């Protein structure tokens, strides 16, 4: 019962992050920031759904398979966003910066 509730709420969190990531891809200004939004969408949404499924199935071989899938996903998921970002960096694209007087940092 509790496992079912945790599983479904994790899947709902995954849906939420997927929607937010797509909104971010639409409203962010340049390629790097859009890439950040899409990477958030991809990793966190998919991870949440995988962990939620691990809570929903009964404890057994399927749980182990889901854990292995999650670990492989942890290894392979960042590669695509890294390659896109590296290509943009090699093409000497200048990243978008906030205007100087709007920055909130203390250097």
């Amino acid at each position, binding site marked *: 019962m509790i496992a079912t509730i945790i599983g479904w709420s994790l899947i709902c969190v995954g849906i939420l*992050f997927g929607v*937010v*990531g797509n*909104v*971010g891809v639409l*409203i*962010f200004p340049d390629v*790097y*920031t859009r*890439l*950040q*939004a899409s*990477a*958030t969408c991809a*990793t*966190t949404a998919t*991870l949440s759904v995988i962990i939620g499924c691990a809570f929903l199935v009964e404890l057994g*071989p399927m749980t*182990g*398979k889901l854990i*292995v899938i999650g*670990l492989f996903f*942890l*290894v392979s*998921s*960042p*590669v695509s*966003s*890294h390659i896109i*970002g*590296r290509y*943009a*960096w090699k093409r000497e694209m200048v*990243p*978008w*910066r*906030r205007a100087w007087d709007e*920055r*909130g*940092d*203390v*250097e």
Partner: protein
Amino acid sequence: MRFAGARRRWKLVRIVITAFYLSIGWVLFSGSFTVFSIVAGLFFSLTVAVLTYDAFIDESESSRRALLPSLHWGGVYVVYLLFRVYVSSFRVMVLVFRRTMDPRIVHFRTRLRSDVARVALATSITLTPGTITLELDDDHLIVHWLDSRTGHSKHAARAISGGMERYLRRIWV
């Protein structure tokens, strides 16, 4: 040829380590523990290991800890990484709605020695929402940081990869 015996022994060790990792994968994916399954798994992992050990483990990679990482710290690291991923996901979600991000490119160096550990660090930085590794050149990382708080490379390194680097040093030294 000098060290021929040592080379032959190192080749055997590499084959055994590759077969060990392959048979773990076999057990996890087949999910059955019958005698036939285990024997067939061992046979085929040994066959594949004899064919591919040179691609898995380079001959010069002879430090023991790079091949057999301490797995208990690996488990701790995965939990810590999931925690970091969720915390920074919520930060990115807030940034999407409030649009107060201040993206910046930061350069810093890592103190990790082995190549596997450096790749693991770069992958973890990319996996964490809000930071993407653009380039990894030996120990020099170029990172795009969505919500940057400082341009000082030492403080940026501590904020982005401080905790991860501490755990990775325990896994691979």
